[in-house]
């Protein structure tokens, strides 16, 4: 905010600005521009999304907040290209909401040999495990599901993430979008027909209120009949019910 104000007044005083702010220092940008990332970024694999992110991809070594309406809405398919890109190192799933299925992860491009599933009974243990993984820096990505987390713990994890180049996603419910977070990038995800709807809660760049629809590869096999066809309903006594027919 301060930087925006500073440049606005600077332009008013001198009438014209001799040098673009981004050429002065890497961490300066105009409010209308996307910031350049000072860390290495992993391409999201979705060009329309990459164009909207500072640095053109998922930043490594920072906390990235993904706010999910509920688990299982396509979040793994969204992260698929990035996870496949870092799959030469281990990928840690910390406290996923349900048991992950290795076969499905293999279909997403993450070889089962690189997957680690960590369960923790207490929140303190989960936070400790996340910090250990981040500090060791030997893993490609850490995906951490946690519904309730305090702001100071988030800050601590964000600091731990900066120690390495681990891709760190924090999966939290949509309601957590109301709370402040040290994450420089926060996205909200909602399911949509044939894809996912991404809202930009926070990013280093201009505010974007419009959501972005991203088509995702479907699980529905194409070789079969169109999806609108009704499943063969079991014939119950009394004949076919009219409600079952579209």
């Amino acid at each position, binding site marked *: 905010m301060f930087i925006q104000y500073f440049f606005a007044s600077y332009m008013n005083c001198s009438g014209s600005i001799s040098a673009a702010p981004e050429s002065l220092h890497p961490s300066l940008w105009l409010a209308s521009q996307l910031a350049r990332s000072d860390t290495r970024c992993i391409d999201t694999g979705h060009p329309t999304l990459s164009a909207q992110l500072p640095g053109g991809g998922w930043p490594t070594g920072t906390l990235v907040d993904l706010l999910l309406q509920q688990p*299982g809405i*396509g979040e793994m398919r969204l992260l698929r290209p990035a996870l496949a890109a870092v799959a030469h190192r281990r990928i840690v799933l910390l406290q996923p909401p349900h048991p992950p299925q290795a076969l499905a992860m293999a279909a997403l491009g993450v070889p*089962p*040999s690189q997957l680690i*599933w*960590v*369960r*923790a009974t207490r929140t303190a243990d989960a936070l400790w495990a996340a910090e*250990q993984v981040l500090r060791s820096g030997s893993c490609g990505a850490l995906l951490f599901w946690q519904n309730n987390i305090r702001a100071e713990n988030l800050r601590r994890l964000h600091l731990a993430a900066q120690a390495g180049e681990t891709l760190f996603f924090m999966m939290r419910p949509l309601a957590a979008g109301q709370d402040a977070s040290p994450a420089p990038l926060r996205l909200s995800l909602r399911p949509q027909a044939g894809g996912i709807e991404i809202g930009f809660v926070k990013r280093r760049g201009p505010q974007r209120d419009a959501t972005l629809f991203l088509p995702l590869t479907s699980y529905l096999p194409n070789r079969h009949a169109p999806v609108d066809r009704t499943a063969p309903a079991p014939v119950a006594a009394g004949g076919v019910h009219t409600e*079952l027919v579209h």
Partner: protein
Amino acid sequence: MASQAAQDAGVRTGMRRGGVLMLLPDARIHERAPALEADARQAVALALLQYTPQVAEGEESTLLMDVGASLRLFGGIRALCRRIHANMRALGFTASLACAPTARGAWLLARSSSRVRAGRAVRMEALLRRLDRLAVLLMPPARPYAAWFEGIGCYTLGDLRRLPRPGLQRRCGRGLLDLLDAAYGLVPELYEWIAPPETFRARLELYDRIDDADLLLAGAQCLLLQLTGWLCARQLAVERITLQLEHERGRVARPPTNVEIVLAEPTWRDEHLVRLLKERLGRLTLEAPVIGLALEALQVRPMAPPNASLFPEPGGSEDDRMRMLELLAARLGADNVLQPLPLADYRPEQANVWVPVQQKVSDKARNAQLPPDVLSLPRPTWLLARPIALLMRDHRPFYGSPLRMASNPERLEAGWWDGPETRDYFIAEGLDHTLYWVYRERIGTDDNGPKWYLHGLFG
């Protein structure tokens, strides 16, 4: 021997018991126990073997180390002294440390002062200057002749060296001259170096009944330090250690609690072992307070120093990764840090097997169990641990909203040998376009219509 507090109160060596108690009514007076002192010296010697293989025991509770060959490895004499001081603190002892070009010179310097840093003479000239100022009676062979030395006004070693040697040898014996020559570097010195034992087992008696994990860890650290010294001396790396927590023998004898640590990568440094023990002790529930600790190295193998690469790999080596996973498993439990080992089975529950990460699984064995085309089977990312029975509304399964079947059924019929499953799996779509993996039981349908279950979520 008196502690610093006692010395401040005026207690001096040679005082009687009554005199001490008059100065300090609540002083604790202990008898000297030569056996325990010898054990303590052995423990310290074992820990110090990590700096040099040449450690010998000297007279009057001293240890002599030849560190000439180790200076460069440990970053110079100052850094080495700092490390030894830190080790002594960790072991719970105080010691006077002196360094000199000759072993006997270092011995004299260390005996001359009760301070922790008794003196460091790196060059020979400096040593000669310091030795000349030391008292004659520091040397054990000179003590029987204390009165005679005082009578002729010979107080320091410098005075002693000015006396004629033949006369000195006639009066005081050969031993005094030999010791003097050894200290001044005129004759070579010979020592019998301590040989590390074949197997490692160290025991520590705690000074109290302890049930606090941090205090136990401090005791265990003391034992691990000895283990490090032993491993370095024997050029071994440890794969499996066990820490026994001995309980007090009350009305019933309790067996000691065993904490066993198995390492994926053998190590001979104690940092990783300390971290693992810390997490394990933190989780441990003790039945009774602990009065003693014993550490044993159960499985060792020859030390293999790691291959260092010119450009360090980002993210560390495979060893670092294993170390991190071991640390996670130590705190969270081995059953909570898992790796997948898919099984070639049509039934999703049986196919999705996860095993502890310490279990060695070859990539070949794992890939053999995967279907040749993983994309051919539409499987959800999240498989519910237990299928949820779905409500039926208007003869359709309902989960938050009515579910619409979005795919043709995939019929699974397998497992007649254990837990048969006859199911039709569908991909269903809710009103909010979330995809679910649901199935219909084909056998066991009752009058209320078919039973539907939710079994997975497509991430």
